[in-house]
């Protein structure tokens, strides 16, 4: 059973008002639906209008045309305070919060709920504790934000947005400056929050792999094309990615969900255990060969173990290699010899 969408847009046009009343339309005709309990990733190349769309949905800039409904109410009918309780953001904007403790930072999320002096009541404190607990940063509560790693800082910002208790959370490239493990951690955290707390989460990202792996829904945005939305798997199988990302030498491989460099390559047949075949394929692709598993080729590799690989070539004795690196070195030398 699908949830009712928390954000819907109707023929939305986004962009900027220029001087003299002229308009620069970045994208138009957007009919979006953001659902609760799901992580939605907004993908697109630079200049496709990801940031403009996010800013428009956050209320930072007005739409040029069309309507945005947030929890069934028109976005512009919200008061500042009730909007702050409905939609929370995590941005890439540089903050000056280094001199606050994590607790103080997260407590800023209670801002829309507290009175004139910002005094925290017992209920507020409980919510702050719970928010820190949910992202796993409780042990850092009394440390300064400046002492955190990038990943921890992002967690603290997510805790802030949780303390804001909004049903909708929008994040602008939350994984951009993080290392690999923090990226996966952050995405897993967001997914867990979407499911456990029934939040509607929308984030923009350049991380194609991670988006395909973790998102329930993808929004593909490209210049001069209608936006495409759907589950990653549906989009891949329908070939939507191919038309969005294929450009020049770049090709979207719908089998692996990866972007590849397209080259005219010499085919190499690889046989062996699947793990060995996969990684040999990885090395072969990088070095300009085209790995295949069940065809005929002039070059064949039989991988017996990771330290014993046999190379068969037409009209030559089989050769044994003890590592992928030495095998690749030999193949590269050989192909440069042939090409020259």
């Amino acid at each position, binding site marked *: 059973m699908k949830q009712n969408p928390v954000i819907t847009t109707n023929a939305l046009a986004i962009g900027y008002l220029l001087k003299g009343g002229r308009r620069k339309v970045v994208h138009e005709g957007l009919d979006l639906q953001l659902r609760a309990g799901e992580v939605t990733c907004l993908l697109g190349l630079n200049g496709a209008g990801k940031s403009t769309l996010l800013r428009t949905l956050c209320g930072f800039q007005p739409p040029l045309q069309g309507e945005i409904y947030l929890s069934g109410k028109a976005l512009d009918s919200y008061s500042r305070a009730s909007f702050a309780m409905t939609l929370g953001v995590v941005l890439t904007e540089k903050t000056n919060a280094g*001199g606050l403790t994590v607790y103080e930072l997260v407590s800023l999320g209670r801002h829309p709920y507290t009175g004139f002096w910002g005094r925290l009541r017992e209920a507020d404190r409980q919510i702050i504790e719970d928010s820190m607990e949910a992202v796993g940063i409780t042990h850092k509560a009394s440390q*300064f934000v400046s002492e955190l790693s990038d990943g921890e800082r992002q967690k603290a910002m997510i805790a802030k947005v949780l303390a804001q208790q909004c049903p909708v959370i929008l994040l602008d490239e939350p994984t951009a400056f993080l290392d690999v493990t923090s990226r996966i951690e952050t995405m897993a955290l967001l997914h867990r929050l979407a499911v456990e707390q029934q939040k509607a989460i929308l984030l923009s990202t350049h991380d194609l792999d991670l988006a395909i792996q973790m998102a329930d829904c993808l929004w593909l945005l490209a210049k001069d094309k209608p936006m495409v939305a759907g589950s990653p798997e549906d989009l891949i199988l329908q070939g939507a990615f191919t038309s969005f990302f294929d450009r020049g030498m770049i090709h979207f491989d719908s089998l692996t969900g990866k972007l590849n460099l397209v080259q005219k390559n010499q085919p190499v047949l690889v046989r062996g255990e699947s793990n060995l075949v996969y990684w040999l394929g990885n090395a072969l692709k990088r070095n300009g060969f085209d790995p295949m598993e069940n065809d005929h080729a002039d070059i064949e590799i039989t991988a017996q173990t990771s330290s014993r690989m046999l190379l068969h070539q037409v009209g030559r004795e089989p050769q044994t290699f003890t590592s992928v690196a030495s095998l690749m070195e030999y193949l590269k030398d050989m192909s440069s010899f042939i090409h020259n």
Partner: protein
Amino acid sequence: MKNRIALLPLLSVCLVLLFGLSLVYGAVSIPLREVIDILCGKGSSSPAWEYIVWQARLPQVVTALFAGASLAVSGLLLQTLFRNPLAGPSILGISDGANLGVAAVLLYWGGSISQVSDFPITGYVAVILAALLGAFAILGIIIYFSSKVKNNVMLLIIGIMIGYMASSLISILNYYAAADRVHAFVMWGLGNFSAVSMEQLPFFSIVSVTGLLLSVLLIKPLNALLLGEMYAANLGVKVKQARMQILFCTGLLTAIVTAFCGPISFIGLAVPHIARLLLGTSNHKLLVPATILAGSCVALLCNLLMVVPGSNTILPLNAVTPMLGAPVIIYVIINRKNIQYFN
């Protein structure tokens, strides 16, 4: 957290001590007993001493107290608003604006802050109004540019440039003014806490306290603004309104102090850093009161250092403040990697 709050009473004790010391210690030496007697209303053996304590020292010390707090708070507000630790009323050209206003009155129309000259009652009122006008004019220009220029360092440089332009106008006014007026303006420009008479003191204090109270009312939006204007807006802060309130408060505080005490450098820039370094926090709930107290303490300390021991001369205030302020700023810049509020 607990020992950080403990600094507030500590600063208060410092303030009381400095306040008392400033009443007792001055260019004219008066025995402690006598000062206490005079302040308790018991009178003194010397009418001159009584006059000095009531009409010179007391207003001067109270002026220093409020002027220091006012300048320090304007610095703090500007640093938070522009998210730049090197912002301050003198750097952003706001003091120069007030300067220009004062210069126009003092040099061109011959008004005066202390003595009554061409237009008796309106003398110092005209100076104050001109200072306010000048400060807000520059603030207006800065606000205009702050919507055009997103980079805070660039904005700071624009502020410095506008300050130069104001200074150049002041030079022109100086060039054409009569010698005695130039002298009066130069003396005013050296800065001092002694120009506020006992009669003017209530007015000065009320305006200053109003500005300080206003800054206390802004604590909640100031904290949200630490995250930047977009985050603050998402937390429900009316950013435009908050920005105007902060700038109005800054302009009011800077203008009133500049009008009466001259353009005092470095207190606005350095004291917020002293407060943050002492407290180790950017949370304005502690920082605003700490900055008020520290500003008063630093101003009183400067007021004491102005007295040259063993002689009855007084150094200009602006000869003392950079000696205290500049090393703080250099320390902060050199150690910025280790100071949390920078990161």
